């Protein structure tokens, strides 16, 4: 396993015509808002995401990223994991332009986003913050959720539909008139997620979406991820919940000290061969992966794959399920 190995299909070369051209020079409409109320898939093309040797240091000198190289194809679902303070949140804030690299560059669809204003990027990349209280501001749940799509130009029935669908998706359909601060933390977190979902951006980034959620809340978040991925959108999530990571994502990126140290499918990243690197990154493989390795079942990062491997072995040995 090498640093950010492009194991997810060949990396397409950026079209020569666009190389170096500022993204602002694109024909109008490509970065503009999606206006249809149709919820099947993003109305605009999903751009690839590329970080080229991105380094970043905060103004106080704290070095958060060191030469991170990462390519995420359109429609991929990627989990980013790593120790607290390893640079995960800093990394995703580079994709929507909230932070700009100290060195290196970020490209969407092969175009450097340096000249693109963060407000324009907001139509392409939705980022739900780790702490909802840094995101929420409105006095009503529906106003909160309408803020994003309204800024993308939606009005009237189309806007109402967006708000309704997003609240429905996170299970807050009946709270449209509630004050966000009358909701408990876990539901404020789902509200912050809804307000990003309502923008229907081709790229969706969730910073620790399952934090503070109970079993039902986690199931909601899993549904949201599955639906967005099913619609062909790119979903990137930061998480410490290895079960959620192994079950809901096709690719796992492991960070340590501001660098990408492992990158691959859950079967690869949680395989026994990678445990040393995982532990060095202060992570632990999920229990089914550990149990599968101990029993010689191969890579079984999820409960489902563990049970299936166990059943296959028994079938081979001629034992039928009772």
């Amino acid at each position: 396993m090498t640093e950010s190995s492009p194991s997810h299909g060949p990396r397409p070369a950026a079209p020569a015509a666009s190389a170096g051209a500022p993204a602002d020079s694109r024909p109008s409409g490509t970065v503009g808002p999606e206006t249809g109320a149709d919820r099947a898939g993003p109305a605009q093309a999903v751009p690839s995401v590329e970080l080229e040797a991105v380094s970043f240091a905060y103004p106080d000198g704290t070095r958060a990223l060191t030469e991170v190289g990462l390519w995420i194809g359109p429609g991929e679902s990627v989990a980013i994991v790593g120790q607290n303070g390893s640079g995960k949140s800093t990394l995703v804030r580079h994709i929507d332009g909230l932070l700009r690299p100290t060195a290196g560059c970020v490209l969407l669809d092969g175009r450097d986003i340096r000249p693109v204003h963060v407000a324009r990027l907001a139509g392409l990349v939705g980022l739900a913050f780790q702490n909802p209280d840094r995101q929420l501001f409105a006095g009503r749940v529906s106003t909160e959720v309408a803020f994003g799509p309204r800024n993308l130009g939606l009005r009237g029935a189309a806007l109402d539909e967006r708000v309704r669908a997003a609240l429905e998706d996170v299970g807050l359909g009946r709270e449209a008139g509630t004050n966000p601060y009358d909701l408990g933390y876990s539901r404020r977190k789902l509200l912050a997620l809804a307000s990003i979902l309502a923008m229907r951006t081709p790229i969706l980034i969730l910073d620790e979406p399952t934090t503070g959620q109970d079993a039902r809340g986690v199931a909601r978040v899993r549904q949201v991820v599955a639906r967005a991925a099913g619609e062909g959108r790119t979903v990137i999530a930061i998480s410490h919940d290895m079960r959620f990571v192994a079950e809901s994502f096709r690719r796992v990126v492991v960070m340590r000290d501001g660098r990408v140290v492992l990158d691959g499918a859950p079967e690869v990243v949680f395989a026994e061969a990678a445990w040393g690197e995982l532990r060095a990154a202060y992570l632990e493989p999920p229990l089914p992966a550990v149990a599968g390795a101990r029993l010689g079942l191969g890579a079984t990062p999820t409960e489902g794959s563990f049970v299936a491997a166990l059943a296959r072995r028994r079938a081979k040995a001629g034992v039928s399920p009772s």
Partner: protein
Amino acid sequence: MAIELATVRYRYAGSTSAALGPIDLRVEPGRVVGVAGANESGKTTLCLVAAGVAPAVVGGKLDGSVRIDGVDAATLRPHELAQRCGLLFQHASTQLSHTTATVFEEVAFGPCNLGLPVAEVVERVWMALRAVRIEALAPRDPARLSGGQGQLVALASVLALRPRYLILDEPTSELDPAGTGLVADALARAAAETGAGILLVEHKLDVLARIADEIVVLEHGAVALSGAATTVLADPRLEDLGVEPPAAVRLERSVRGAGIEWSAALAKAIE
């Protein structure tokens, strides 16, 4: 000696229904009592009530009695409460003072306010930073920490008060797996070595499996399940109560659910 809640009911100011109760609960020194339950089942309210913060600080109405080492919590003044019950809020940003320039000063804020001699303040700060292994963060700006680092600083600031009881509302929610294990170990040590009584709210039942002596599961503000940790963790009603059982319990259930016999070899593999 204990925190004792006797037939406690509590409702927030302006609310017509009780957020908590009726509930009886006892947290003894040296014991870890885990609290689980779905979102909005009353876990945070229980923390506020057990620490004497509700209704004293946040208002509302309390029925029944909350006694801390035999003293009615309602009669204790804030600084007296603070030395008995250390309360860790769910979010570091609520906990931190936002008045200090470094993590060291942030953790010193509580002990300084207790009027302790400087040498003792310094000793306590290092003890607390060491307990959660964040000595390296001491010179950093508390406003520029990651979510998980902030959570560890908040916990250290409570430990530095050396309270007899620790009331912790999801102390590991933003921590990586290693940080979660570290906090679990630090709490187990606090209970075993300093005799702290701990009330610990957790969604991660693997943490409770590791250190809790007993567990209470809340539903709609009342106790739905309670008992020895091992018994509660294996209770089939957990999922219906919106609580995800520990990984080992889930895995065993999935295997059995697939019609595969559970064996000693399987049990050993998930240890």
